[in-house]
């Protein structure tokens, strides 16, 4: 097998047994790698009746075929499982340094089941795979754990770590790499915690990767790295970070404010934008493995209530979810909130969104002080919000415990009327891009995304922003964000390419600069897939379909492809004020184009067979 190693580590934490499993080459060719390969593995081997936090639940880490190949943006990794936050199939992507280390150790992935009787961490090094006691690490923050593992295994060991939030089953607990990069979404830190697995540490071996055409790949890599390095996107993100366009986004109504109740706040845009961070607290920039963009921020806040030592800084999603969304334009507070979330192992998007829901519920007298243990939440009161995070992470008190389940579950427990204050898709809190201003196609993309409210599962966000188009497949429409025109077709293209990106584990910033023919060349020179553009896009479509089938088996149907009223009602101010999203019309057209059954929400048997998925078709259509 070229590119991929073809091998995964299987661990049963109950028995402590480990095994090496070889995967069929067809899995790779048909489902690419990363989240697509994880979905296929689960489809073949998973148990759909298992609770996400039960011992038998399966947690899958999977690389893409390009990990470790010294190509900008290509060394991210995926984690996938049934999400404890949504109850649906979920996956999450992370940059950083873990995926290449796992590849150099000789593996494409790790599949974990069972629950250890006591806390453990998993050691992977050239001598083998070992479970080690983690009693002394349990309860520690992510950076403390990372430091302890590096002290024992050397500073070049790469770690995946959960914090107290994962240990306490917070349903949006994340998994941190090097205490700076996050598998942020859908709560997989809680899955690790439920298995008593505190961390995974890899000391890379020196496995050489076999490539289909090493010389051609070397030439291509040189070209692509140069393209990414010289791109305007790369330059802007490197200089100003992922919040570079925040001010422009505010101007367009893309940035949700005070729990999505407002779409314009000019001073906030100026206060929180990437430029402002560069001028105030930025002390350095960091990059994921082999990336020439370096969009990661390093910050220090010297004094005041939100002082933080030099270390990882907030990216766009954190800045908005702990800024505009909570009615704050205090940049220092976003630095502090991001750091506290990282240390505790909390997803910043869901954490900020859940606090925003609680604040509105309290303002509307729907959340009593009895439920909040006397705590008052006020827009912009960042000290209170940040002070609540450790209580959430440790499920302390009734309020911390309520918020630890995420906004949708908390709303259901609080009162059905408070569901009106949630902004999510399929239970996953929406990211910090408001489709009403950012682009109506994004509403469709959020709604039909298998994992729920997600801006990186597809390429719709950059397509509507104008940052990418695909002339090679005759998709060169100039998309106008605030209409539904051409969006169903755009959503099809975005779903296919998004599935390829997330299966190849490629960064969405870096791969903007790579054309579709270059994508094909990458897969062919590395993995020898012998693809053309059409067959590559078919693989992307196949991955999208498979994730729909997984959700179907969890009971999701077409009715779940929707958004709550808060995200669809016309904006009250700013650029998108009063504009209605024609959601149902876009969804119906998308279903037609994708061949999805209007009730079940899955592809018809004929469509599945066309995509070489007859076995899958039999399972869902004969059930």
């Amino acid at each position, binding site marked *: 097998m070229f590119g991929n190693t073809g091998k995964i580590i299987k661990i049963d934490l109950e028995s402590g047994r480990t095994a090496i499993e070889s995967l069929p080459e067809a899995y790779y060719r048909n489902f690419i790698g990363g989240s697509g390969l994880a979905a296929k593995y689960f489809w073949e081997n998973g148990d759909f009746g298992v609770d996400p936090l039960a011992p038998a639940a399966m947690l899958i880490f999977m690389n893409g075929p390009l990990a470790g190949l010294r190509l900008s943006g290509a060394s991210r990794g995926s984690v996938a499982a049934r999400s404890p936050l949504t109850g649906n199939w979920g996956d999450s992507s992370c940059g950083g340094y873990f995926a290449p280390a796992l590849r150099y150790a000789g593996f494409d992935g790790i599949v974990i089941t069972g629950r250890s009787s006591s806390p453990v961490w998993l050691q992977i090094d050239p001598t083998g795979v070992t479970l080690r006691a983690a009693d002394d690490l349990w309860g520690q923050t992510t950076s403390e754990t990372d430091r302890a593992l590096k002290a024992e295994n050397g500073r070049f060991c790469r770690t995946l770590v959960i914090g107290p939030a994962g240990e306490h089953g917070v349903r949006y607990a994340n998994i941190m790499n090097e205490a700076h990069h996050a598998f942020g979404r859908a709560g997989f830190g809680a899955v690790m915690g439920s298995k008593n697995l505190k961390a995974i540490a890899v000391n890379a071996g020196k496995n050489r990767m076999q490539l289909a055409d090493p010389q051609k790949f070397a030439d291509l890599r040189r070209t692509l790295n140069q393209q990414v390095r010289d791109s*305007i996107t790369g330059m802007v993100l490197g200089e100003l970070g992922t919040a570079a366009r925040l001010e422009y986004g505010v101007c367009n109504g893309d940035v949700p404010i005070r729990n999505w109740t407002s779409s314009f706040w000019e001073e906030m845009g100026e206060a929180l*934008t990437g430029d402002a961070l560069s001028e105030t607290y930025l002390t350095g920039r960091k990059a994921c493995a082999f990336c020439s963009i370096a969009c990661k921020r390093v910050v220090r806040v010297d004094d005041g209530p939100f002082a933080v030592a030099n270390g990882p800084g907030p990216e766009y999603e954190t800045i908005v979810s702990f800024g505009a969304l909570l009615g704050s334009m205090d940049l220092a507070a976003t630095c502090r909130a991001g750091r506290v979330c990282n240390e505790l192992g909390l997803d910043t998007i869901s954490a900020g969104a859940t606090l925003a829901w609680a604040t509105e519920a309290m303002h509307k007298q729907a959340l009593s002080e009895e439920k909040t243990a006397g705590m008052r939440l006020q827009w912009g009161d960042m000290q209170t919000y940040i002070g609540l995070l450790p209580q959430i992470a440790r499920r302390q008190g009734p309020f911390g415990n309520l918020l630890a389940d995420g906004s949708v579950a908390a709303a259901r427990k609080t009162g059905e009327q408070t569901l009106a204050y949630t902004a999510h898709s399929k239970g996953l809190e929406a990211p910090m891009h408001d489709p009403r201003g950012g682009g109506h196609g994004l509403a469709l993309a959020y709604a039909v995304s298998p994992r729920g409210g997600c801006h990186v599962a597809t390429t719709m966000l950059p397509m509507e922003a104008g940052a990418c188009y695909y002339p090679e497949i005759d998709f060169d429409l*100039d998309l106008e964000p605030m209409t539904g025109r051409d969006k169903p077709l755009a959503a099809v293209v975005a779903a296919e390419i998004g599935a390829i990106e997330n299966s190849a584990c490629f960064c969405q910033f870096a791969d903007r600069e790579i054309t579709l023919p270059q994508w094909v060349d990458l897969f062919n020179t590395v993995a020898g897939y012998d693809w053309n553009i059409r067959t590559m896009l078919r693989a992307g479509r196949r991955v999208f379909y498979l994730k729909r089938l997984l959700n179907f088996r969890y009971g999701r149907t077409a009715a779940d492809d929707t958004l709550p009223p808060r995200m669809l009602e016309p904006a009250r101010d700013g650029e998108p004020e009063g504009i209605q999203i024609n959601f149902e019309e876009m969804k119906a057209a998308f279903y037609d184009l994708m061949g999805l059954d209007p009730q079940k929400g899955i592809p018809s048997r004929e469509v599945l067979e066309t995509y070489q998925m007859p076995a899958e078709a039999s399972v869902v259509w004969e059930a």
Partner: protein
Amino acid sequence: MSEYYRDQEHLYEVYNYFLEQVLRDEKIGPKMSRANIIIKFIYTDPESEITIDLKSPPAKEGMYGTFYLGPCDLKEDVWSKQSADHSHRFWHGFENPIAAVTRGKVKQGGKITAMLKLLPVVKPTFKRFPQVLEEMGYAEMVVKNR
């Protein structure tokens, strides 16, 4: 052949009037001057050049920057090259600046991040530009829709 401008002189006449207003505007002018850069716009069809100096003290009282029509000796921090017609539509708010760069309709160089910061600042002028054309007696140059 430009759809909107007869020649270079015509273009300079329009932008002279427009930029004078923008750089005097009490809300927009101060925000523009905070960019602290020199921008050169290079237009094709008709070939022309406009430099906006937001770095040096303004040459005229009441303005927040200085602009120069035609070639000038100032060394720009950032440059942007596009057709005059594209620029004309941009100032109506009908061109997505990000898409224009992605599709190669606009070429840029230098300190692009500083230019990016100006995008939200100049957005309010999109309503003003068609008004300027009408005030100048060029109602036929107003672009009605995308």
